[in-house]
């Protein structure tokens, strides 16, 4: 509970209507002030003290955590802007939540032809009481032209917060019961539940009221709808323009501002605590109508959440179906031709958490019809201060045979928290007369011999923009792609053909050269001309390794071939190399030491096999 008391010396008055908005009105008001000031001055003492210090608190008794306002006002007569000395009150017993400079005012009056002026400025402190006890705001002092103005210390009674209800926290107590036999604060916030205990899923109403003894402006910006863990909440109303009602507590008249009502649905069992909520009050006071601000905190409140009983619970019960529910079903058509669909609407209405309410699986219970996927909708409202509403399920049903089509009764099991028992809501069966389509059309149903006509097929559901390319062949990109494919393919084909032709030409040349060498070797054999055979071999080597080998002696050739073998790019096997060098040596020797016919024949045979070995590609 929160409490702010108003000290006797700073009683505030109800606000005057704000009507002086036009410039003429303002001028008149200023004139009025001047005139009345003059009149007042005429009867006042001839002169004001040079300095006057006033310290006011807007509460004499608060609870720990409450914020109250302290005004420090300095009035100077004459033309001085600041006092010679100013000592502000000691505030160490409180936490300074905010500190502002009060608006400065200047006043000039003429009394008996003599003009005098005064200046007023000050400070506004928002103080929070942090610990309980008698806390003191120290004296303040101001000095000007030898005159000293001193304020008395202000004692604030800071009390511990009251704890009542389950777990020591308030929950359902009406303020009249809470403050019975106690002093009622001038302002307080009353946050209250409509019950101490509730089942999981049961609706609990939270009401937040502000009690004041005077008209105030309520700043509700800090009053956010509570979102406590373990609850699903629905704000029933947060009025923007609040009209207070009147109530008497312990003989004192209060204005009661209802600032919020919230339907809360506990989701988990156990004792749950709602944290305090904050409301800021703004009021005006004093002859200059200074605004005063107080922040009020509600008390934390507790709720005991009970689990749903296991006894009586059916398998089809859904844990969100808690409250009071009725179920009804209706069809869009009473009579229709076969093939035409109708809309079936199944609605659960009543009190409870619509969000959690699970409707029966209607589409699974309809037979002899084509059933389309349902859509759901909700309508919420407030009746007697509680969340009511309807949750509907609509689906398209297309009977597949003529005759009387019956939509069965659907069942909605729910838990009634008032009775503490499980109950069942049932919808009424719905009948639709399905007429055969025009005679003579369509197949005949085998089972009941009804004539099934032909009607248009229904519209398609869940249409989505396809990624269909449509007339792709007509697009420029497609045509360019095709042209590119054909062009590249033909290019590859032509280049490949040319390369093949070149290779064939080369092969033909090689074959011709081989043929010529064979012919030369054959002639050399007939003429027993080893030099000619040697030329044929060199010719084969030249085709293989280039013309540089033509001028090499057998020794140079052997070294050259050995060098190539070492580099690994010879292509002639070592045995063939050896055989070649041996043959060249033998042929060379035979020129100077003629051999027998058999020996020569052997040399030509060797030359033949050597030629074959040299012409072989590796």
């Amino acid at each position, binding site marked *: 509970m929160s409490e702010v008391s108003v000290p006797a010396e700073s009683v505030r008055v109800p606000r005057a209507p704000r009507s002086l908005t036009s410039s003429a009105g303002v001028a008149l008001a200023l004139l009025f002030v001047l005139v009345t000031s003059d009149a007042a001055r005429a009867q006042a003492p001839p002169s004001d003290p040079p300095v006057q210090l006033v310290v006011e608190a807007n509460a004499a008794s608060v609870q720990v955590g409450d914020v109250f306002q302290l005004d420090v006002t300095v009035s100077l007569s004459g033309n001085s802007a600041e006092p010679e000395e100013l000592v502000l009150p000691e505030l160490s017993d409180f936490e300074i939540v905010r500190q502002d400079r009060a608006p400065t005012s200047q006043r000039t009056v003429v009394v008996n032809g003599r003009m005098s002026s005064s200046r007023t400025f000050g400070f506004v402190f928002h103080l929070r009481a942090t610990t309980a006890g008698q806390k003191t705001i120290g004296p303040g002092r101001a000095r000007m032209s030898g005159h000293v103005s001193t304020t008395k210390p202000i004692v604030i009674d800071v009390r511990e917060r009251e704890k009542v209800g389950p777990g020591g926290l308030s929950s359902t107590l009406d303020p009249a019961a809470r403050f019975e036999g106690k002093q009622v604060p001038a302002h307080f916030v009353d946050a209250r539940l409509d019950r101490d205990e509730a089942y999981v899923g049961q609706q609990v109403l939270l009401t937040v009221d502000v009690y004041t003894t005077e008209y105030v402006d309520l700043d509700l910006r800090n009053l956010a709808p509570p979102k406590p863990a373990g609850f699903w909440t629905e704000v029933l109303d947060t009025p923007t323009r609040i009209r207070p009602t009147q109530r008497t507590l312990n003989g004192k008249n209060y204005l009661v501002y209802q600032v919020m009502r919230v339907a809360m649905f506990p989701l988990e069992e156990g004792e749950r605590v709602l944290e305090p909520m904050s409301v800021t009050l703004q009021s005006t006071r004093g002859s200059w109508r200074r605004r005063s601000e107080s922040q009020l905190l509600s008390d934390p409140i507790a709720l005991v959440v009970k689990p749903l009983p296991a006894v009586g619970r059916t398998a089809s019960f859904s844990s969100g179906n808690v409250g009071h529910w009725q179920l009804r079903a209706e069809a869009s058509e009473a009579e229709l031709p076969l093939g035409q669909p109708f809309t079936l609407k199944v609605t659960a209405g009543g009190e409870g958490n619509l969000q959690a309410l699970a409707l029966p699986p209607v589409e699974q219970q309809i037979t002899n019809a084509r059933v389309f996927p349902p859509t759901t909708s909700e309508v919420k409202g407030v009746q007697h201060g509680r969340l009511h509403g309807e949750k509907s399920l609509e689906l398209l049903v297309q009977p597949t045979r003529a005759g009387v089509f019956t939509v069965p009764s659907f069942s909605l099991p729910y838990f009634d928290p008032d009775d503490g028992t499980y109950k069942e809501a049932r919808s009424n069966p719905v009948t639709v007369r399905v007429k055969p389509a025009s005679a003579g059309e369509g197949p005949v149903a085998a089972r009941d011999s009804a004539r099934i006509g*032909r009607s248009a097929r229904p519209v*398609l559901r869940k249409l989505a923009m396809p990624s*269909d*390319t*449509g007339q792709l*062949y007509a697009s420029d990109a*497609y045509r360019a792609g095709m042209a590119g*494919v*054909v062009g590249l393919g033909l290019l590859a084909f032509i280049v490949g053909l040319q390369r093949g032709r070149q*290779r064939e030409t080369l092969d033909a040349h090689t074959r011709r050269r081989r043929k010529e060498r064979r012919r030369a070797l054959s002639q050399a054999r007939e003429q027993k001309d080893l030099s000619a055979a040697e030329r044929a071999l060199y010719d084969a080597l030249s085709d293989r390794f280039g013309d540089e080998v033509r001028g090499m002696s057998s020794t140079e050739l052997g070294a050259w071939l050995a060098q190539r073998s070492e580099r690994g790019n010879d292509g002639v096997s070592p045995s063939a190399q050896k055989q070649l060098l041996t043959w060249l040596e033998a042929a060379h020797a035979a020129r100077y030491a003629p051999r027998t016919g058999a020996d020569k024949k052997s040399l030509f045979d060797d030359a033949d096999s050597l030629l074959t070995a040299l012409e072989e590609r590796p």
Partner: protein
Amino acid sequence: MRALSLLLVSAFAASLHAAPAGVERELTEAEDLAVRGQHDAAIDAYRSLLERGVDFTGLRYNLGTLYLEEGELGRAVLHLKTALRGDPRSDDARYNLERALGERADELEGASRDLPAWSMVASLIRSSEASLAFAGTLLAFVFLLGLWPWTQQNTALRRFCTGGMLLAGVAFALSALALAARVQADSATEAVLLDAEVHARVAPSEDAAVSFLAHAGLFGDVVDEEAGFVRLRLENGLDAWFPRASLGVVGEAKAP
């Protein structure tokens, strides 16, 4: 070849059209209106989408079906024929189109139900499918053709190329035929009579003699157009002139 494939894929991707924002939601709303029996509102919603360039087979089918439910045979035939052109295998569109045609007031003497061969082929395949099949088989054939001369030294690869070319060539020829049929079907300009009753005339003039009184849903190929009149060749081969304003062209983006 890899670069070529990338080029093709990019080209196909560029030709796809993305769904405008909010279209899916508007489609759902239109469907909900339709299933609740609020056909006029559903038709308006679909037409609005169509006028904003949202045009595809499913939308045309739903629009044609709603017109059919409302008894507007001309528009039903127009949109269902457009749907069928987009998806020639749509059984629903074919079914509802037959129903719409069956409810027409006009009966054409000597109208042949036999479809030409190209029309039968076109009714089996969508344009996009024919395009992709043509592109794919052409790509395969050209790839193998380009590879073939390079396989001179590799007998196995050359055999593979030769066999593949034969197969790809046959497939390419078939897909080319299918594409040609689709192009033929798509390029045919058909118009449907939308007004309930229109005088079919023997010449493109209001003063010309009336050939017969035609009713909504009658359609034919557009043969000629002159002076605000269109010459239609009806299903039975009869030619007649109709006011252009009384006709809707199949496949035209504008929603009549």
